[in-house]
């Protein structure tokens, strides 16, 4: 069905729009401008994540603990949003979690190896924001970062901020 690609196209356009706008305003993009674009994308994802989690947890019973929440994110949430489950969840039981997805849906169209690796972070910012928004609405403040070594596999690192 075409439904899956609808969001992928929209996402690609969002990323290129934000970067092109910044470029036309500032001319050459330096690191600070790039960082500003990435935080803008992340903030968009944050708000989307908040709304999404409200809808997705409407009928689920409340979560027992942090690990339960992370498992929900890895299974149900990832399935609804990215149409697959997270392949690997690792934790140090002290608030840091690493979610590994070996075929991240927003990266599959780019390449199967190392080509375009430097462009990947732009396309992961929105998803990091979605995860951060989801966790924030469930009561966990966190910092979410993503890294890619080989496309389309990527790792999301979630560090829960303890208050």
């Amino acid at each position, binding site marked *: 069905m075409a439904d899956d690609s609808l969001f992928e196209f929209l996402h690609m356009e969002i990323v290129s729009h934000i970067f092109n706008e910044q470029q036309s305003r500032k001319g050459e993009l330096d690191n600070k401008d790039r960082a500003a674009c990435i935080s803008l994308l992340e903030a968009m994802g944050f708000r989307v994540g908040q709304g999404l989690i409200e*809808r997705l947890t409407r009928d689920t019973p409340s979560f027992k603990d942090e690990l339960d929440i992370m498992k929900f994110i890895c299974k149900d949430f990832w399935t609804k949003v990215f149409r697959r489950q997270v392949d690997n969840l690792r934790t140090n039981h002290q608030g840091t979690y690493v979610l590994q997805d070996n075929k991240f849906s927003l990266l599959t169209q780019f390449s199967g190896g190392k080509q375009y690796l430097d462009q990947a972070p732009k396309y992961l910012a929105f998803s990091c924001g979605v995860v951060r928004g989801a966790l924030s609405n469930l009561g966990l403040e966190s910092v979410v970062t993503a890294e890619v070594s080989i496309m389309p596999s990527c790792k999301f690192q979630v560090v829960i901020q303890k208050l």
Partner: protein
Amino acid sequence: MAVCIAVIAKENYPLYIRSVPSQNELKFHYTVHTSLDVVEEKVSAVGKSLADQRELYLGLLYPTEDYKVYGYVTNSKVKFVIVVDSSNTSLRDNEIRSMFRKLHNSFTDVMCNPFYNPGDPIQSKAFNGIVSGMMVQTG
């Protein structure tokens, strides 16, 4: 039919509170505020008994001589409180549950509205409509 309906944010301040206008509104604000303690108690108590499934519906929080207070908490720690008249004994548990479900659905829609910032007072007309449908009709 409810006498007062309130939506309280995770940080325990009201996002939406509406009561039947003919009665003393301050009394309802106070009731809702005190019911928050009971909600907290129930939420933390359920955490200790890991055996049973944690439900979102909290049930009757506490009865007073004039009215009964029911509570419901979502996974995002937003609390809904419904105050009903004690004299209205025909209201069954199932009806209260369905009222909470409608409230939750309506709240989810408000949350997904891009023009709504989480944490702001709820001003959605659709939400108002749903709540009006559940309040006691006066006049």
